[in-house]
């Protein structure tokens, strides 16, 4: 059963089909009106720009990346969509005000290591998990 959404404003876009219409094979739902599909984008966290190189030894920054893009039906294989996301996207087509699209989010994350001084001048090396986006997908 579908539950009514709370505090949700209807989206004023022209890309959503009518609830009683399913997209045909020639409908440019995927990548329509120039919107890019869910994928990974560059995001660099600079310890240098933060002014932290007085205590961070390495690295001077790292590429964290972020995910952005559309998760519209039909979800391509490149979108790394789960079965649930595929189902949710389909239901969104039928009930756009009740069920949102699947979210473009990280599906695989990796670690990054940081070498730094503490306030006692001890040198610390720590691996921080789930800091770097390796892959994005519709979930």
């Amino acid at each position: 059963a579908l539950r009514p959404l709370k505090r949700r404003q209807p989206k004023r876009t022209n890309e959503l089909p009518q609830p009683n219409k399913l997209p045909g094979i020639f409908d440019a739902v995927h990548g329509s009106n120039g919107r890019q599909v869910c994928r990974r984008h560059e995001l660099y966290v600079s310890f240098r720009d933060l002014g932290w190189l007085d205590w961070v030894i390495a690295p001077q920054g790292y590429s964290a990346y972020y995910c952005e893009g559309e998760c519209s039906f039909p979800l391509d294989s490149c979108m790394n969509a789960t079965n649930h996301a595929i189902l949710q996207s389909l239901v969104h087509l039928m009930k756009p005000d009740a069920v949102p699209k699947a979210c473009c989010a990280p599906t695989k994350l990796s670690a990054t290591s940081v070498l730094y001084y503490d306030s006692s001048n001890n040198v610390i090396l720590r691996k921080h998990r789930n800091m770097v986006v390796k892959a994005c997908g519709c979930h």
Partner: protein
Amino acid sequence: GGPGPRPPPGCPQRRLGARERRDMQREILAVLGLPGRPRPRAPPAASRLPASAPLFMLDLYRAMASDDDDDDAGPPERRLGRADLVMSFVNMVERDHVLGRQEPHWKEFLFDLTQIPAGEAVTAAEFRIYKEPSTQLVNRTLHVSTFQVVQEHSNRESDLFFLDLQTLQAGDEGWLVLDVTAASDRWLLSRHKDLGLRLYVETEDGLSVDPGRAGLLGQRAPRSRRPFMVTFFRASPSPGRAPR
């Protein structure tokens, strides 16, 4: 980063205010597991030469960073094992005991362990001390034994806990790596106390040798050859961050 349309070019971009920048930095520090921004003491200009602990840790960093991309792969560096936190300790007090011909000679290092985080499991701990070739003990085999000072007594010898024994030649040169992992069990019980590591050097005949004569360098060594301790931790699952 949202799915909405981007603002047209020429629209004024909002810049973070000073307080927002501080808040942002505090958030990033929290992600890195730090309660605040570290403030290391800058060494005097004359001594800003590469120091032993940072040089060693930089090697470890390169090994760990090469492993970052694939958490499922085995560690490329044996010393790292499954450790994801490595701490080096350079602040120590050194004491030498070289008295008379009957007393055993020893060299002791006291480490401040108050920076060790709680809840971290120690996977390994090493004490690294540089050895130069001994010019006074030629062609002799030396036994270097390491003990933890458990309890000092004013009227008798301290209680010691055996940690490691290494055999080497008097002419050997390089970093001597002493395994002190067994001492880590006691850290949790006495975190407020300094960790005392005591080194004895003996010849094959059982004669006690001044560690300095054997070529072991202490704190007065050049910066790149000063002793330090390294501890490897496997982080316990982080507690959930408090909601902001």
